[in-house]
């Protein structure tokens, strides 16, 4: 992926879009990212976090930071059974962590790609969703994000999820209610 220089314009636009989608976000420095993320999870009452196998997670040493806050750490891929992954067994306050391949500033959309280190469903099986986003991965438009993900000529990922805010349903009286099937809350830690 070609690195885009971090632009304040894109960063501000993304933060505004995420707010509009009822997601929360914070912008942190690389050195502070692990600690800040762990603090956010502790405040949200998270008991267990499932982490993808990703260089960004390793770089900010998120596992160690979480353990210091007393949060249980499970590494993906996990030996947990399907019932436990779905939260039917084990602690309820589980947080799925993702590292988006890209984020779309104008719509607050995260682009999650499946791969051996990243599950397809961590952000929907868990109660909470925290995304660790390197700031240089922010692009302006959806068209740009899709072109980068798919128009490569090479093999495309088996599954790409565009996630724009926490799960919701408007099926009852057309009023948006959070936490239908997926995460009740979405928090994006933007690392620069």
């Amino acid at each position, binding site marked *: 992926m070609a690195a885009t220089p971090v632009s304040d314009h894109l960063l501000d636009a993304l933060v505004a879009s995420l707010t509009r989608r009822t997601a929360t976000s914070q912008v942190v420095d690389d050195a502070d990212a692990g600690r800040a993320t762990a603090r956010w999870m502790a405040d949200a009452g998270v008991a267990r976090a499932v982490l993808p196998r990703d260089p960004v997670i390793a770089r900010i040493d998120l596992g160690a930071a979480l353990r210091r806050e007393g949060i249980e750490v499970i590494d993906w891929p996990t030996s947990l059974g399907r019932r436990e992954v779905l939260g039917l067994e084990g602690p309820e306050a589980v947080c799925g962590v993702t590292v988006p391949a890209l984020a779309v500033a104008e719509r607050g959309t995260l682009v999650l790609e499946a791969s051996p280190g990243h*599950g397809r469903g961590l952000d929907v*099986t868990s109660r909470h969703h925290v995304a660790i986003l390197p700031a240089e991965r922010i692009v302006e438009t959806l068209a740009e994000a899709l072109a980068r993900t*798919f128009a490569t000529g090479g093999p495309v990922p088996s599954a790409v999820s565009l996630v724009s805010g926490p799960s919701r349903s408007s099926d009852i009286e057309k009023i948006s209610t959070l936490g239908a099937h997926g995460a009740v809350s979405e928090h994006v830690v933007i690392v620069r």
Partner: protein
Amino acid sequence: MSTRRQRSAGGVAYPDIKGTLHERTVQALGDQTLRTNLETAASSWAAGQEVMRRDHGMDEMRARAREIRRRNIRDLPALLGEMQANVRKAGGQVVRAADGAEACRYITGLAQARGVTVVAKSKSMATEEIRLNEALEASGIEVVETDLGEWILQLAHQRPSHIIAPAVHLNRGQVAEIFRREAGTDDVPDDREGLVAHARVRLRETFAQAGMGISGVNIGVASTGTVCIVENEGNARLVTSQPRIHVAVMGMERVVADWDDAAHILQILPMAAISQDAANYVNLITGPRREGESDGPEEFHLVIVDGGRGALRGTEFEEVLSCIRCGACLYSCPMWRSVGGQAYGSPYSGPIGAIITPLLEGPSSPASRDLPFMSSLCGACGDACPVGIPLPDLLVRARARASSPATRKSAVAFRAWSLLLRRGLTYRVGVVGWRLFVRVRGTDGWVTRLPGGGAGWTRVRDMPARWPPRR
């Protein structure tokens, strides 16, 4: 396994629907709760459309969306071939089904061969159209709808009233009642948050058990063989990631050429459908899980359904194939807003349903012949459609197609009418005569019953005996 096109024998309209279209309409009009619920939904959608137009340039996006979809339909055979090849290249299987019965046979056979006992489904109009649930259940397979609205309807044994918001005709109290009955306990909360949480837990049990997930497809992208599934709740992702097998059912017209096309359609779809510039989740799936991946289905099957669609290419109705099933024309339609989708007796209601149901059924079907008349031709649907389908024109053409010798009488009447109106003298005499007639006929300023051919008109409305009418 590609098959030559045949005329669908199954049909689209529900076979077990009760009463005539007219009876169902009258009944729906008398249901005050229904009308309130529909009106609430439609006006919140309409307010959102204003925002989409003002802040997100929706009107400017329509022309390009129309151009894309018309081109896709023109190139359809080639795009389907490309789609098919690319899905296979990604390790998936593709089946072309001439009609619903063939699609159902394939999916049921697959489920049986793999020993599947529970199927988790996400929302799909194509599966509703081919009546897949009934086919699976007839083979002893349990099917659970996991979209909240669809699940509510499944529990209540009702049909969807809107293609995007299927349970929009029910209010919170009615939903709580349905959940209590299913759970066999009064211990179900009354508030929306509580109801959503209740469904979440119940349906997770389904995801833990299901051996097969079945989804629809909003669009297929030919250049990579990717299916796009748009949703807000997250259930479609669970359906496509938890069970061992994923079956995606796609109407054959839903394919676009490449990611340029897809990006535009994926943006305008949620704008028109839910008045948002993005849906919460868009799942872009290319084949089954790959080597080394630890979740996602091991098998991916794409079932492409013709069901009478292919025969519409090259006809005066070709443009209906551009439809992206956003539901905007439903909300915009004063007729739909008054009676809801269930009265139509078809999974597809509103203006688009009134046109395509009889087309997919074949011209002689008594179940859907009258549907094109479910419109006042006000034109609102044409303005609402994000892909610029000329719905009012097509409604008129669908009426002409439905008109049989039985309606010759009205042709004569209209001829006489036009003669009367074309000359100044006969027009004025007619107007004076009519005024006198209604004034004599009316009571308290209103005519409640007209004789002869006018009787149908006054059955559900009154006519003012003078202008302006007195309230």
